[in-house]
């Protein structure tokens, strides 16, 4: 629970657009430099991950992730009304999975072509 409660407006939707891993991200701002909509702003504190200022303008293009050269530092997130219905079924077992599920299956590590 927070000690101090501030007056803040509702969060824009989608709330986050991307997530940073502060242990990997070194705050180089490459992602912020190329985001087409300036969704990401440099953090006033040097070396810290950028701040997601305009998540509502995110085009979900993933260019920020492609531009980052520290794997795992930044993750793109689909808004919930999009991700909740990305569902797949394993043919052999009939198991159903979905994006964002609590206990996801093991990742498929095969990279894309090219």
């Amino acid at each position, binding site marked *: 629970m*927070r000690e101090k409660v*501030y007056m*803040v407006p509702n*969060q824009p939707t989608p*709330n*986050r657009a*991307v*997530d*940073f891993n502060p242990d990997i991200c070194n705050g180089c701002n490459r992602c912020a430099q*190329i*985001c*087409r*909509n*300036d969704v990401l*702003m*440099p953090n*006033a504190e040097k070396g*810290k*991950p950028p*701040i*997601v*200022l*305009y998540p*509502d*303008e995110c*085009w*979900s*293009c*993933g*260019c920020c*992730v*492609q*531009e980052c050269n520290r794997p795992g530092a930044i993750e*793109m997130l*689909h808004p919930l*009304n*999009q*991700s909740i*219905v*990305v*569902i*797949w*079924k*394993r*043919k*052999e077992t009939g198991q159903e*999975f979905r*994006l964002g*599920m609590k206990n*996801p*299956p*093991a*990742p*498929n*590590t*095969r*990279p*894309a*072509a*090219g």
Partner: protein
Amino acid sequence: MTTWHEYLESGLPAPEWPYPVRYGSEIEVETDVLVLGGGIAGCHAAINAKRKGARVVLVEKGATKWSGHGGAGVDHWLNACTNPCSRITPEEFIESVSRDCDSYDCGPSLYINAQEAWETLLDIESMGVMVRDMNDEFKGAAFRDDETKLMFAYDYKNRIDIRVHGHNVKPCLYRELKRLGVEVHDRVMITGLLTEGGRQAARVVGATGVNTRTGEFYVFRGKASIVAMQAPGRLWTFSTEYRSMWNDLNNAGEGFAIAWNAGAEFVNLEKSWPAMITPFSYIPYGVGNTSNTWHGTPIVDTNGKEVPWLDRDGNEVRTAEERFEPSPGQKFILGPGQHVPHTYENDPKVLAPDLSERIRKGEFVLPLYADLTRLPEKERRAIFGLMVGNEGKTRIPVYDILTKAGFDPDKDMLQVPVLPVDAYNKTSGVNYWAGKAMPLLRAGAGGLLVDWDLRTNLEGLYGAGGTVSGAGAHSTAATGGRYAGRKAAAYALTAAEPIIDPEQVRKEKARVYGPLQQKKRSIGWKELNAGICRIMQDYCGQYKNQETLAAGLRLLRELREAECSRVYAATPHDLGRALECHTMITVGEMVIQACMVRKASNKFLSFSRIDYPAMDPPEWQKYLPIRLEDGEAQVRELPLDYHLRPPYAAGYEENYRIHCEL
């Protein structure tokens, strides 16, 4: 601490704007060729103008390295008729497309595309895009030519559409821009064109812009200008909650608005098109479907029963490869996404077009799944690894995110969204991710009218890419940019020095900074944008009549004078978005006026007039170029084959040879 809210709640004061703000300060830039918009068309234009020896400045609202619709990737390179494996000549291509379009929308741009798409692909290959199957991953596949290692899509027999690994196409183009010494101005939004003496319809001598990080004002002076700022993308639907974001937010329509204000002519603005993505849509290419990138994918029902694929005569198609071959007697299949309607002549193989009725009768049970496991390994990998791995907005948003979450196309079936049953019928190639497509939601089309130089009616102003009527897809934008770059450079190298009218600059500067001055009852850009959309949805929707169109025009004008005059901007970023609302109102006015002058319904233009219901009366089979003169829209008539009549030659190839500047 990722979001702004988390930052505030940590007890830190509201963060200051991270970039220096210098509202009002003016930066002057001078060049031979000024390229407006750094997307696919703009980058190719700048590179080719530079190669011709001109000094080139490129201005981009976002960051050129990844900006624009093509910035997130490309997986199919259309209409490469001159590639060594092609069985279709540019002449055969243009003849067929002209017929499919009833001669609308297939002027010089598409022919130039058929002539140069292959050369342009070789060009981006030399810049570092992996075009061929260099790793021999697909050796022996039906869609691969083993000698050239080229891989084809949609029509394995005629081989004009090429599968490419284009996820990094923009970084490659950007590197080439830099290598050649093109001067790039990122984060500068173009707001207006400058004309000789500040007069409408005079020679274009430059443009104005505003930096959306610093608020600085730019005055660009150029001997020739190329508009490459795409078509307007959020005039009918806009919501950041429901994701109506097929279109890049930045493509708000300045390309149209600035050229209109300068007096340039437009055609086909009255054309509408079912919105590719409605606000109820899904992740593009991220759910089970058979459209475009996913063409050929087997669809099964919840019990594993496969939905048949049919040829154009309704005969069932047995093998996976056959889904990529012409039907008996068919010359060739046209690739998707080109604003060319599906016809008997060009249609690909399709998933049972009566699927909705069959679901209703109980023959197939929802939900449906895309079952890639039923395909031969190479076909499966081509769809999910090559195409979904490289298409726009798919490498990270679909391929990476889904595979990291465990999706495996070798084992898993991806669910098709559960839609109203009618939505499963054949619409635009069965892109189920378009969601609950309502015919009411229309997107605009059309654009600048150009000649065989890709020049507009204004001296010094050229057009390329989505800003030009009929130049819709990636390879079309690339070839148009390439050609317009050559033509603009040739003109600029002999053109007189451009002279800018200071009064025109002063007026534009005052307009641009208007949204910073608001104090009373201000409105933000998002609410204003949605309001503009409401006018367009209701008054310029699928069915139109003179009275409602006129009422829509009145509402837009009122909105401009009332709410839009109170639009408020708190930051340079906001300022750009607020100015986009001015843009959208102008584009709305252009579109409604174009609709008002076409007093006949038209099939190709998807144009339904309640008051003129007769479809396609012969006397209305013509273009109606429209332009602004002293505040009034002026319209004239132009034959659909204007580009094959005097002063031009009678054939495509001859005109191309005369004008192409090669």
